[in-house]
């Protein structure tokens, strides 16, 4: 009996061993998780725990000793991931259950991390669970500055040096005007410094929001690339010459579209990254003034100036 019991017990212990060996790494998943693979694994483990009862979920999240705090509701998954990623800064307090923020992924988390939490489990995202992707607005700053015509040569040189000192560059220069590009983050500073170069007669700053255009172009580019991929697959399968020619023509057209869209995106990125400032040293034209100013009905004030005074 005894040998049989011992044998039975040992078989039970041996049978449990694999479970222990799997459970051990599962508990230690998040503490050292610094790589993407580790995070993914953590995500799966947490997703699995969400399928269990809330008690189990709390048990699984009780690994505080590993430096993880997953004791919150399922919304804490994102929290757990953030902690696993950074493992340095304290995690923010969890959002209230059922709120929109619950479903929204942390801004830093790549979309590949959020997908497994819903897709593998087959759960549908609720109306509130839509993933909102926040994009910083893409703004293009353009300024036109009109300066008085005094010491133009040296001022042109100073504007050019100013652009370089701010990490920008000269775009165009002639005898009366200069166009510089400066990093968008230093736009205000550039304007302030230009103001000090002389007598600023007027300033016109325009801000163009190209976020939507950029996003649209990005989507169109993605679609065009998908079409190209499909066409390439079709081309590989094509058996007739006519078919191949047709597909190649189409491929060429799609490639052109892709080039154009890529160019447009590059252009928009560049315009947003570097603001354009044009400084002109000349009086405003009468047409320009006519739109905005009235003319005082006093003829003699239009006869003042060096031209008349020095004509003896």
């Amino acid at each position: 009996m005894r040998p049989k019991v011992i044998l039975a017990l040992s078989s039970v212990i041996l049978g449990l061993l694999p479970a222990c060996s799997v459970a051990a790494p599962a508990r230690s998943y998040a503490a050292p998780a610094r790589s993407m693979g580790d995070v993914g694994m953590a995500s799966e483990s947490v997703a699995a725990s969400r399928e269990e009862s809330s008690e189990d979920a709390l048990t699984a999240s009780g690994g505080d000793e590993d430096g993880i705090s997953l004791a919150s509701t399922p919304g804490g998954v994102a929290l757990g991931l953030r902690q696993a990623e950074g493992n340095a800064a304290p995690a923010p307090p969890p959002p209230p259950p059922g709120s929109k923020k619950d479903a929204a992924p942390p801004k830093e988390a790549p979309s590949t991390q959020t997908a497994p939490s819903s897709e593998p489990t087959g759960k549908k995202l609720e109306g509130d669970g839509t993933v909102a992707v926040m994009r910083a607005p893409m703004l293009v700053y353009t300024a036109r500055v009109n300066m008085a015509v005094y010491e133009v040569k040296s001022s042109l040189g100073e504007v050019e040096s100013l652009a370089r000192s701010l990490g920008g560059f000269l775009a165009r220069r002639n005898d009366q005007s200069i166009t510089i590009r400066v990093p968008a983050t230093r736009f205000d500073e550039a304007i302030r410094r230009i103001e000090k170069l002389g007598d600023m007669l007027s300033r016109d700053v325009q801000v163009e929001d190209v976020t939507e255009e950029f996003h649209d172009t990005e989507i169109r580019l993605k679609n065009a690339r998908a079409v190209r991929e499909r066409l390439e697959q079709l081309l590989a399968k094509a058996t007739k010459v006519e078919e191949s020619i047709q597909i190649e023509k189409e491929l060429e057209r799609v490639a052109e579209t892709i080039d154009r869209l890529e160019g447009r995106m590059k252009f928009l990125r560049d315009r947003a990254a570097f603001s354009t400032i044009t400084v002109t040293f000349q009086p405003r034209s009468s047409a320009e003034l006519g739109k905005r100013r009235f003319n005082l009905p006093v003829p003699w004030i239009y006869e003042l100036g060096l031209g008349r005074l020095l004509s003896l």
Partner: protein
Amino acid sequence: MRSRVDSIALFALLFVAACRPFEPATPPGFVELEDRYGRTEYRATTADGVVIGIRSFDNDPKGERAFWVRALENRMRDMGGYALLEKREVKDRAGLTGTQLRFGHDEGDEPYLYYLTIFVTDDRVFVLEAGGARPQMQRLAEQIDWSVKNFLHH
């Protein structure tokens, strides 16, 4: 007797016509360019091209000094592209307070200075101008200031 009265009247008329509503002060180094300009205008120049001039106009529309200063400043900066370098208060020989606008302007590639001084009375606006290449203007700064201080309005 009749001819004597006529002569006096004619003399008085000529005197009034010839009389300027101001008394200019020509500084050393400048020569007055007489007979070339009307009764309401005065000009003097140096040999190397610094010119001072005085003109007077009716104060019409009737405005305070601040009004005329602003009007001239706008005109010179916006339409002329002149850089306003300095604005200061000055007084003429009678103690009337005026405003001097100091402008800079490039003529070709060379920087020039142009000073515009305005005195305003109830009836008249007096405009004193001084202009020339910057080095000469700087050299003659004292003389130009002297001509403003010794200007006398009537």
